């Protein structure tokens, strides 16, 4: 058989032909473009239209941005330098930088205090956000609210210290009795903390020095992007525990508690945040004791916290509902009581499911902090629309200021949502 070819075929190749590269239009960038940009006529038209739109946007904005001025001292001076050319007048950002960030009333020699608080915020948030870090860093997180309060508001250092002491006393009482009865321990802890705070406030009013280490700043002097950050951070961190409590209350088998939670959640979710801010600015004062003067910042924090806790409660309720019933039954069969079952079995799983939802609410809440400008608080938007655009120097520089505000919010919110996606991948323990 081996000699058949010798008679039938004139030539047989004995070596292999080296591999040829793929044709031009079937590989590399050309193939990619054919498949992704110009697969059909309609699609090609769409691509051309998209390129045109991008060109329009970029050709309008890029020269405007790169031709921008950074060093003039007023809009009139900008116009003089530009001589009719269209370019940005970013000098408003450099000149009013501190006002945009800290508001126009915060004492200018104390800007280092909120800046330091911001830097410390990253230290405090790190162990919460990235749980690979050593757990001991959580101490920084626990201490942070008190340090930040002292840095931003100033006043005597005794106030935050006694606040901390109150929490510590409450916690000691709670952990002493928690083994016996959870509800009793919790109410005992709260009562002990209250007593400690009351004694603390007496002591502070007695021994507080005349001139504290850090000069006190009233909260109506806060403003700018700092105010947005403070409102966002405070309200989110306060509303998560409140939201958990509301969600558990809504699931509760006790009709009265369930009824209270349902009414609260549905009421808050049914009205816009702005009406709640109206409540804070014009109505809430009527519900405090006549002699008490609760400042606007605290009233706004109360209302925004109530607002976001209702939404967070609904997210967590979704997480609770998503748990298989077997988990509840397993906890019961292990002989755990309600508090133990929730703390050790149900909540860790339910919260993990709810994290993306909670982050969404947090981003939405952070964006909504701009609404306080409507009740004449000078946050970033309030600063731009109020003092800066109303000043004679900068009357008319809309785009630079609004663009800056938009950019700040975009960076923060986009960052948070990217983090949440990373966390979701990190926490995905199933279907691997």
């Amino acid at each position, binding site marked *: 058989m081996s000699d058949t070819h010798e008679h039938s075929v004139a030539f047989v190749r004995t070596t292999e032909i080296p591999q040829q590269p793929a044709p031009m239009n079937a590989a590399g960038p050309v193939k990619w473009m054919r*498949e*992704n*940009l110009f*697969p059909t006529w309609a*699609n090609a038209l*769409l*691509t051309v239209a*998209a*390129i045109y*739109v*991008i060109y329009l946007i970029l050709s309008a904005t890029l020269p405007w941005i790169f031709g921008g001025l950074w060093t003039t001292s007023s809009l009139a001076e900008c116009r003089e330098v530009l001589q009719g050319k269209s370019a940005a007048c970013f000098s408003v950002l450099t000149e009013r930088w501190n006002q945009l960030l800290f508001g126009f009333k915060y004492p200018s020699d104390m800007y280092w205090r909120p800046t330091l608080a911001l830097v410390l915020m990253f230290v405090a948030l790190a162990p919460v956000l990235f749980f690979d870090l050593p757990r001991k860093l959580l101490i920084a997180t626990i201490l942070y609210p008190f340090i930040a309060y002292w840095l931003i508001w100033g006043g005597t250092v005794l106030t935050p210290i006694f606040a901390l002491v109150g929490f510590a006393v409450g916690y000691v009482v709670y952990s002493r009795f928690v083994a016996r009865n959870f*509800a009793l321990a919790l109410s005992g802890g709260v009562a002990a903390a209250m007593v400690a705070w009351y004694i603390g406030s007496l002591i502070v009013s007695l021994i507080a020095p005349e001139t504290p280490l850090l000069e006190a700043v009233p909260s109506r002097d806060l403003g700018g992007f700092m105010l947005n950050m403070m409102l966002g951070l405070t309200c989110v961190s306060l509303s998560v525990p409140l939201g958990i409590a509301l969600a558990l209350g809504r699931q509760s088998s*006790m*009709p*009265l*508690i369930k009824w*209270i939670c349902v009414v609260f959640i*549905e*009421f808050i*979710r*049914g*009205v*816009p*945040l*702005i*009406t709640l801010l*109206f*409540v804070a600015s*014009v*109505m809430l*004062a*009527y*519900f*405090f*004791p*006549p002699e008490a003067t609760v400042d606007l910042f605290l009233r706004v924090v109360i209302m925004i916290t109530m607002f976001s806790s209702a939404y967070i409660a609904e997210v967590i309720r979704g997480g609770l509902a998503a748990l298989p019933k077997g988990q509840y039954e397993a906890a019961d069969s292990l002989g755990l009581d309600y508090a133990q079952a929730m703390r050790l079995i149900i909540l860790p799983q339910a919260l993990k499911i709810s994290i993306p939802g909670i982050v969404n609410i947090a*981003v939405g809440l952070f*964006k*909504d902090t*701009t*609404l306080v*400008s*409507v009740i004449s608080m000078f946050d970033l*938007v309030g600063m731009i*629309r109020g003092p800066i655009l109303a000043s004679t120097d900068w009357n*008319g520089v*809309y*785009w630079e200021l*609004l663009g800056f*505000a*938009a950019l700040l*919010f*975009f960076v923060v*919110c*986009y960052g948070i*949502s990217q983090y949440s996606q990373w966390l979701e991948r990190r926490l995905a323990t199933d279907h691997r």
Partner: protein
Amino acid sequence: MTLQVIAAIILALSLAYLYSNLAANLRAAGLNISFGFLNSSAGYDINQTLIDYNSQSSNLRAAVVGILNTLLVAFLACITATIFGVIAGVLRLSNNWLVRKLMAVYVEIFRNIPVLIWIIIIFTIMTAVMPSPRDFRGDTPASSMLFDLFAFTNRGVYVPGPYFTRGFGGGEGSALNWVLVIAVLVGSFFATRFLTARANRIQEATGVRPNTLWTNLAIWILPISIFCLIFGLTWDIPALKGFNFGGGIKIGGPLIALWFALSIYTGAFIAENVRAGIQAVSKGQTEAAAALGIRPRRVMSLVVLPQALRVIIPPLISQYLNITKNSSLAIAVGYADITATLGGITLNQTGRAIECVLLLMLFYLVISLTISAVMNVYNNAMKLKER
């Protein structure tokens, strides 16, 4: 049980505490709770109203004007947001890389910047960038009208307004004309529904579907055109009169800013819902439909969309709810919605803070509860029928 009793006592005590504080504060301020102010004259003007209103009208009427304005902007924004959202959501799944990325950028930019900033940006475009009516005058005007029909000015957009020369109510025309127009359109709608049902029956019986496209088009177009011819439909074209435009319909800058900002902002959220809904339909469904020999376009409309809608509609309705609630930001640009009339000017003029805020909340609560009731009915109807 004990816990409930404790909760009841705490609740009663705190309510009593709040009430006693309220009573003490009101006594100290010499106020009382009364809704009598609603009947007194409002004393302020509103520039954009849907019903008759002047500064002598009562505060109640001002509130009704505000309610109608809220519903108007919410309705308009719901429609346009849905259009933007569906287009962007579908294009985000396009196989065109550039379009896909462009839509992703749109969604991310609009979702991550507060809606208040968007409203202010668009309001600034409306007031600071648009030409003033003065620029339209002269032999070589600095700006001109679009198609000689639309005028974009910094006082608002003027569009041609339709009216009937031979309709009821004489030259001014009455609302009856428009009721008739709607009646004709509703009639056409039911006629086409009937025709489609008949086509379905014939298809079931014989396997051949009669072509309904042209008859449907005729049913939609013919009656309404005949109606308009009989009643003499004419367009009132806006034109420069003195220092401002006259004629046509004026859509104020604040309304446009609010409408457009709410639309693009919420559109970005709806786009994500639409994308998630379409992606939630498993690929096997498309393949099974293709295996049955259904053409690609009908696969979309008969197989994918009905299943995707089940996922899309509930979040869509809650986005509509968000639009309605976010329309309260009208107060930032001076659009006279319920928050700006009842919660803004009326509140400041009468000092009736508690009453005004309570009424305001009541209004939004009623709207939200209505919409969630509708949503529950829909969800029950669309629920997967399980054995």
